[in-house]
């Protein structure tokens, strides 16, 4: 049984001119427990929107997104929030750490809305990503690569079933990008979490057994239609 199953998913946005544009139209997509998949796509292809849909940050117009047996499209917004806190980890291209908080506090924030703060786990995760000696550093005291490592630790803080990563290497130099990718993959494996990573970078494909082209997944996507 799939951990993540998407069926007939549709998401449209209103453009500035008032026309409705389909951003995501996916007939079917599955991700198994522990599976690591790369979703490739160009800018504007709807990668981030798809991740936001899976995370429950935005609501789908049609279709279903079943995570661990629960269709999140049928949940209320607060239900999706609770689900996201408990089942999902999120890694962003721009890290999205909170500036006023130290490394360990950023990781603890990731726990606050889910399983609850566990300082020893937060410390363990930061040690695991090589920042055991930077626990009390603030984001502005870290390099870009270090920031992303904090974000990776935060994403795994709630024992998620799925980690969603949106261009996690996009703002890193090749060396840091390689390290970050290896960390995400290995930490997901250690924590038995599935990984869905979206990127426009074709060179990442060699690191994944499953590589999906978002354009192919979205091939039935329509053009535009006026708002009725």
């Amino acid at each position, binding site marked *: 049984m799939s951990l993540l199953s998407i069926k007939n998913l549709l998401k449209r946005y209103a453009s500035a001119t008032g026309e409705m544009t389909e951003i995501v139209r996916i007939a079917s997509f599955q991700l198994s427990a522990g599976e690591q998949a790369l979703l490739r796509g160009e800018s504007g292809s709807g990668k*981030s*929107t798809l991740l*936001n849909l899976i*995370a429950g*940050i*935005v609501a789908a117009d049609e279709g279903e997104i079943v995570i661990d047996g629960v269709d999140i499209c049928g949940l209320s*917004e*607060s239900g999706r*929030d*609770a689900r*996201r*806190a*408990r089942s*999902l980890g*999120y890694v*962003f*291209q*721009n890290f*999205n*750490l*909170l500036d*006023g*908080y130290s490394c360990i*506090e950023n990781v*603890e*924030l*990731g726990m*606050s*809305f*889910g399983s609850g*703060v566990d300082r020893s786990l937060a410390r363990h995760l930061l040690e695991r990503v090589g920042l055991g000696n930077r626990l009390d550093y603030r984001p502005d005291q870290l390099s870009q690569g270090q920031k992303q490592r904090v974000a990776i630790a*935060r994403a795994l803080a*709630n024992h998620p079933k799925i980690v969603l990563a949106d261009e996690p290497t996009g703002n890193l130099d090749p060396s840091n990008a390689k390290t970050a990718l290896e960390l995400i993959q290995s930490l997901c494996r250690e924590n038995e979490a599935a990984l869905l990573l979206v990127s426009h970078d074709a060179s990442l494909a060699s690191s994944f057994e499953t590589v999906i082209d978002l354009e192919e997944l979205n091939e039935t996507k329509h053009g535009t239609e006026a708002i009725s």
Partner: protein
Amino acid sequence: MKPVTIAMRGIRERLVSSVITIGAVALACSLLMLVWAFKKEAEQSFAGASGGFDGVLGPRGSKLQIVLNALYHLDESPGLMRWADFEQVAKFPAIEAAYPIAVGDNYRGYRLVGTTPEYLSNHAFAEGRQFELESGGAVFESDSMNAVVGSFAARRLSLEKGDTFNPYHGLIYNESAKHQETYTVSGVLKPTGTPVDKVVWIPISGIQNMSGHNPNAATDVSAVLIKLKKGANMAGFQLDMLYNKQGDRLTLAWPANRTILQFFDKISWFDKILQAVAALVAVIAGGSILAILYNAMNERKRDIAVLRALGAKKSTVFAISLLEAVGMTLAGVVGGFAIYLILGFGIGEVVQRETGVALSPFTGNAAMIWAPVGMLGIGILSGLLPAIKAYRTEVSKNLL
């Protein structure tokens, strides 16, 4: 991390603007309490500090001036009245006691008041409370050169039993106006919390016959302090009729405490200005909370979006924002109490120095409840708009 912890961190992160806002709330809260609670305490203390007297008979003039001069030892005497006037009023059947006083001299700025020894020995200045002397002290005898010093004056003048001093002419201290007479302190009064505490008491003949005073006024007095027998209120009306309406030489200030309350009523316009200022500061404090949190929300849309992406519910970010407003207001209220106590003690000290009336900022008053609660209400109301903004923050648009 609990929402309250995140809210406190938010306050700490914007330390300068938070401190300014907390300061504004503290100022507003303390002003509200000072204007309402402390002012009420001042009114009650002044009205209650009439020293156990029901009225004051003095020369023709303003009742307020007579009361201020004779009971509060402020202001100048409007003139003199004859000893025979004292004897006449003292014989009035409804009068329990009448004590003449004479003023006109000071010792280093503290007023010398001449009276009869019975005033200090027999009179109850409050229900069940008579004057008490510090250990070993004694009340002066009628024609002696002894003095009894009020507790506050004794402390300020460093006078103790056995010390001697020379009075100075007039009510204002002038080093060159020293009298030849030397008085010896026979006792120091225990604190009463009334204007008696800031007076140096001597026999009335001492003032009347002080060197340099007009010998023709040697039997005159400045005023007569009157205590009516219990339940003799009608006598007050009769005396009022006798002296104020039928007579034209003397003035009876009765009831004495009403004269003071009327004075407070007359200056109530000033209270209203203070109340308006306090209310304005409260509104400004509320506006400050609104502005700081609303602007912070603009700067913190990304942070809110991140918290939401981490699983925080809309209601949670709403609560965090509102808790910031509540936290700042609570800190302001605590600061307000601190300012109130500091200012209250400071003002109380000045008032006691100037009038002898002891004020306590601790006296319970409803304003000490509604002012903090009101400020909290203003804080919550001011925090609602930013909290709604946080609630409505769109996650996907604000995640970079």
